[in-house]
């Protein structure tokens, strides 16, 4: 037990950087940075409250049909789904790619201890995801329905255990996945293809179940009769998508009866049972998936592949050489592959699939809207591609990713222009992959014409340039270079968060402008033309700014 507690303590300190936060707060420059970041968070609060007031309206709507418990289910489903999704990524990087593994594995501790301690820290990380979502639902339900003290006690227990089961599921799935993809040779490739396929299948079934449940619900002859008779009807039918969420909401909506207590026990019991099962499985699965992982660095001995120098020496323009180097590093570093490239490919697929799988009924309204205003889908496509430029985090980690290798860039005679062209190019190449995936998946829903394809490609990529440059500007101002694990450069890098904030402002501004123009009946071709101009102007201004900053920072850092 002492071992486990000590492991948890250390892991906690490493993950949340408690010691280094205290240290950096003592430094004046960092202190200002942290205060600024605090303000940035505060500025998000108005948006959050707008969302909450929207939730209140949804609660009222459910209450009118006597199905308030459905409101709770929405909260449980949303937060548990998100915990599960983030969980897949967190588990993958924390269990298999974190830096401390090389030190932990040789120690005389059981695999389940390592997994268990990492699970505990992940639980706390996941609270950051789950609490902002579930709390408004629980509080609105509790206050508007003037629920009693038992409700609040149940709520506390439920919110505390909420991330456990999705995280257990994510852990088990990832451990099985890593165990059986641990094949010598093209392991990284197998894993990324496997992960993408896995997520697509997962979402396909998820959406399918939902749509089946919805259809079944509406079909019954006695639907409205049943609706009045059973105030938990919607929850019971729609909760099938993820039963634990259903138990959670039923526990809260029936807190005054023994039924509620039993659902609470079920919710917590399944989570604890799942955890025990997961720890048990970790003894069998964890090392088998992991050991090969560490092996990679040593497996290929000398001379496994001979190089023909005549064929392998190629000249390239410096900017292209930088772009290629970036792309190779992104593809060959699993953490980058999952976060940047994985996201760019998966997000468009999921978005499009969520509409597609729901079947003809939900497609019909979309088709109707599009028939009147076919350019809407083009605008949507452009917006999504630009947003991917932010989600991929390639721009806002481009210098951080250099890490301890940064000296190479600084001692070589590289023109600043080449640095910018090369790094923007790398980001655009990844964007191009997202673009292709988006266009292909969109063509399943609707006929997109050549002009749509043209504008989505041109404006999407053009609009991504300023997005990448914004990220680069942030990253060159405060690059995170001191790391041993690439995970730090991408996942523990505040620049990613700041980049998203500024990226949202940029994209939000563009969206508002387009809405304004459309409402004022400005011709769509004129809008496209205007966007081209804006994007070029932004790119140019940011290019000038970046040139100055890179010149200055390359000397100072």
């Amino acid at each position, binding site marked *: 037990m002492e071992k486990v507690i000590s492991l948890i303590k250390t892991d906690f300190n490493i993950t949340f950087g408690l010691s280094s936060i205290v240290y950096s707060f003592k430094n004046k420059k960092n202190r200002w940075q942290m205060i600024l970041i605090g303000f940035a968070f505060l500025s998000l609060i108005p948006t959050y409250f707008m969302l909450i007031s929207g939730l209140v309206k949804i609660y009222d709507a459910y209450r009118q049909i006597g199905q308030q418990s459905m409101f709770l289910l929405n909260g449980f489903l949303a937060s548990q789904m998100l915990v599960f999704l983030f969980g897949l990524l967190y588990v993958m990087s924390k269990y298999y790619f974190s830096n401390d593994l090389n030190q932990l594995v040789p120690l005389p501790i059981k695999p389940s201890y390592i997994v268990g301690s990492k699970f505990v820290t992940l639980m706390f990380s996941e609270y950051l995801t789950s609490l902002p979502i579930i709390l408004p639902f629980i509080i609105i339900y509790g206050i508007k329905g003037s629920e009693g003290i038992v409700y609040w006690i149940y709520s506390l227990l439920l919110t505390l255990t909420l991330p456990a089961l999705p995280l257990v599921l994510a852990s088990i799935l990832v451990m099985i996945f890593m165990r059986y993809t641990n094949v010598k040779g093209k392991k990284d490739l197998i894993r990324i293809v496997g992960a993408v396929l896995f997520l697509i299948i997962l979402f396909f079934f998820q959406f399918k179940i939902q749509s089946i449940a919805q259809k079944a619900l509406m079909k019954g002859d006695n639907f409205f009769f049943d609706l009045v008779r059973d105030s938990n009807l919607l929850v019971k039918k729609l909760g099938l998508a993820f039963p634990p969420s259903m138990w959670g909401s039923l526990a809260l909506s029936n807190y005054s009866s023994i039924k509620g207590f039993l659902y609470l026990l079920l919710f917590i019991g399944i989570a604890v049972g799942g955890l025990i099962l997961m720890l048990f499985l970790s003894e069998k699965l964890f090392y088998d998936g992991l050991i090969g992982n560490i092996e*990679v*660095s*040593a*497996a*290929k*001995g*000398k*001379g*496994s*592949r*001979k*190089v023909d*120098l*005549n064929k*392998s*020496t*190629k*000249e*390239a*323009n*410096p900017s292209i*050489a930088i772009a290629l*180097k970036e792309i*190779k*590093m992104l593809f*060959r*570093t699993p953490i980058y592959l999952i976060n940047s490239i994985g996201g760019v490919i998966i997000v468009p697929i999921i978005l499009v699939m969520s509409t597609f799988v729901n079947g003809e009924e939900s497609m019909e309204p979309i088709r109707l809207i599009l028939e009147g205003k076919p350019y809407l889908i083009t605008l949507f496509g452009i917006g999504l591609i630009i947003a991917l430029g932010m989600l991929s985090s390639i721009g806002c980690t481009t210098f951080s990713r250099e890490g*301890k*290798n940064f*000296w*190479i860039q*600084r*001692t*070589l*005679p*590289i*023109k600043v222009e080449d640095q910018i062209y090369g790094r923007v190019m790398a980001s655009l190449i990844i964007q191009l992959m997202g673009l292709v995936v988006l266009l292909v998946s969109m063509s399943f829903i609707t006929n997109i014409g050549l002009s749509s394809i043209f504008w989505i490609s041109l404006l999407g990529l053009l609009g991504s340039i300023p997005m990448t440059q914004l990220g680069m500007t942030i990253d060159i101002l405060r690059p995170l270079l001191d790391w041993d694990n690439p995970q730090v450069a991408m996942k523990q890098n505040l620049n990613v968060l700041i980049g998203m904030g500024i990226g949202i402002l940029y994209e939000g501004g563009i969206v508002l402008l387009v809405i304004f123009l459309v409402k004022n009946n400005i011709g769509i071709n004129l809008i496209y033309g205007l966007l081209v101009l804006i994007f070029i102007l932004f790119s140019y201004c940011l290019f000038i700014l970046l040139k100055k900053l890179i010149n200055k920072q*390359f*000397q*100072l850092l």
Partner: protein
Amino acid sequence: MLKLKNISKTYSKGTIKAVDNIDLDIKSGEIFGFLGPNGAGKTTTIKMIVGLLKPDTGQVFIDNIDVWKNSLEAKAKISYVPDNPEIYDKLKGIEYLNFISDMYGVPKNVREEKMNYYSEMFNIKEALGDIIGSYSHGMKQKLVLTSALIHDPQLFILDEPMVGLDPKSAFQLKEIMRKRCDEGKTVFFSTHVLEVAEKLCDRIAIINKGKIIAMGTMEELRSHAEERESLENIFLGLTE
């Protein structure tokens, strides 16, 4: 070839003087050894020469070009081998060499010839197709050395180059240094292996606590030190 004019660098808001008002003038065709105990300021000085650390005061000239004003021009004339070969783990050896060659704009036939020559000499040719992450410390060091020699730099700057090299490669590196100087090019390196400095260097500077405390040929250093014949004795006497 390399001129340092009154350069200084302090850390921790001026409380620690890492390099204190150093002047150096190194001519073409010279092998210059930079000696000193741990923490004397060797690496700091080298970093200021190659553009990794900006001096608080003073100037650095390479072939009469101010490193901190016309950095691209200056950097094109040098190459730098750090004490710790941190290079892109996820690239293959050959990819790294091509990348560096692209940055210096080395033509295909030249880079092919140099890569072949140096990778064979350092016995890493067979490993060029592998990911750098699979290399040992010494192999990485040799790859960095190869990459630093591809563009045939006027000034070759090395920080503790012998650390981590096997005896054969260390011998070859010394040969390369000697040969470059015979061709009129310049080598500047730091070391605390006194034997290497004694045998190889045309001139030596000893740095301690950020200041140069002795400089000259072996003969000159000997003549200043009474009865202390070996460099080891001189070094120990000066840095006590």
